[in-house]
């Protein structure tokens, strides 16, 4: 009995989704909504299968710019946090600048990046990077910086050099903060890539969506959205999997 109920609990979200799709498939025609406004799930699925190879090509491009942007954000976010922690002067210089910078809606200045970096992948990578940078930086700052004074004293008295304290204390403490940041930064980087593709260029999922809109091919637009959703889910799933395997000591990951 316990087995069936836990199985049911596990598949409950899927069952709910299936019910929703069924409702959509049957309900929308009854309401008289035309297919070019809200296509039926079956039409979206058909279009998805028809365009599978284009979808994959688009995802490869968008996925690449997203992941490269994210990786750059990870490296520079952590380095920037380190600089601010170890060089206190930088804190008063960098922090207000970064706060001001973060308040600029980067989507609004995206056209500028296209002017500066062209229609190729560079402008998309930079947009993805800039959108992902802030959460990585802020969380790294907390994870690397907020170490109990007693831990630092203990390490110092044991003869710990700055480098050893960094690798064995600060970095280890920061890992869960950074994985948390990645879960937020990943979809943001994706937004950066897709907005870049909207503004200029001729490849990627963003381009595919624009193409669908241009041709009033609503099922194609929805099919592209499905591709993105699958991609994001896989990406965040990978981070969560890492957390579950490597961060078993975290309160949220403990099995009681």
């Amino acid at each position: 009995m316990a087995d069936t109920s836990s199985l049911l609990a596990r598949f409950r979200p899927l069952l709910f989704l299936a019910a929703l799709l069924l409702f959509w498939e049957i309900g929308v025609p009854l309401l008289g909504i035309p297919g070019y406004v809200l296509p039926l799930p079956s039409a979206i699925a058909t279009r998805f299968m028809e365009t599978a190879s284009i979808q994959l090509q688009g995802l490869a491009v968008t996925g690449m710019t997203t992941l490269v942007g994210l990786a750059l954000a990870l490296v520079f976010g952590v380095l920037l946090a380190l600089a601010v922690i170890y060089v206190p002067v930088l804190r008063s210089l960098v922090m207000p600048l970064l706060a001001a910078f973060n308040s600029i809606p980067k989507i609004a200045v995206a056209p500028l990046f296209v002017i500066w970096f062209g229609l190729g992948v560079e402008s998309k990578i930079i947009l993805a990077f800039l959108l992902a940078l802030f959460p990585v930086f802020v969380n790294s700052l907390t994870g690397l910086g907020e170490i109990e004074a007693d831990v630092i004293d203990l390490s110092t008295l044991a003869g710990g050099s700055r480098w050893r304290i960094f690798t064995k204390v600060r970095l280890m403490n920061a890992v869960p903060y950074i994985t948390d940041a990645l879960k937020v930064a990943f979809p943001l980087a994706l937004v950066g890539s897709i907005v870049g593709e909207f503004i200029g260029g001729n490849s990627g999922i963003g381009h595919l969506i624009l193409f669908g809109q241009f041709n009033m091919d609503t099922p194609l637009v929805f099919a592209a959205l499905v591709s993105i959703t699958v991609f994001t889910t896989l990406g965040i799933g990978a981070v969560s999997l890492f957390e579950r395997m490597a961060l078993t000591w975290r309160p949220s990951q403990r099995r009681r």
Partner: protein
Amino acid sequence: MSASLIVENLSKTFGSTLAIDQASFSVPENSFVSIVGPSGCGKSTLLRIAAGLVRASSGRINLRGQEVTGPIRDVGMVFQAPVLLPWRTTLDNILFVAEMGGLRAADYEGRARELMALAGLSGFEESRPFELSGGMQQRAAICRAMLLKPSLILMDEPFGALDVITRERMGFALQTLWEESRNTVLFVTHSITEAVLLSDIVVVMSPRPGRIHDIVEIDLPRSRTTATLRDPRFVAFAARVREGIEAGETEY
């Protein structure tokens, strides 16, 4: 017995508040010395100065003939909280000080396991701190402080966060560990019973500004047990320490 730690005319001011006023005492080699005194009399500050983590405003501290001017490496520290790293196993937490000192952790694993056994932690080597009780975590912290056989171990109310029953057991566990290692220990506590039971010497401090009011030598035989608590001499020592604290409180 030669002195390991010598504190001479030590004063410390924070801004305009005088936290410690002209404290002098010494800790003989391989002895267990306690500091008792009311909250805020500067006990933690004194320990931090002894460790070289904080500079004194005036006066001197000598450890084995060397003046303390900066953080000293040859010292073990136990805080009121266990301060274990949550991502490390208990064994690895104890070995942490070896790694920080640039030593090969593997060389100290045997000793770490021995200490864990003495502290009643056998079988918990691979457990994470959150799987241990508060008392067990604090015992692990004591093992960690003893791992490298430092010339001085400083303990700042290590049992302060524990309940009375656990606290008493911890006192005896500490005695067992200490009798094995005979490290020089400077131990801060609020508990008069704990101080008298564990120590060779009890330093009594008075509050605001922290002054040394009395120094009591406890020459009760070791190992001490619960029976010691009923020994008339133990009761007399405890009474003298209490008098010292109370006199110090009304004096100023």
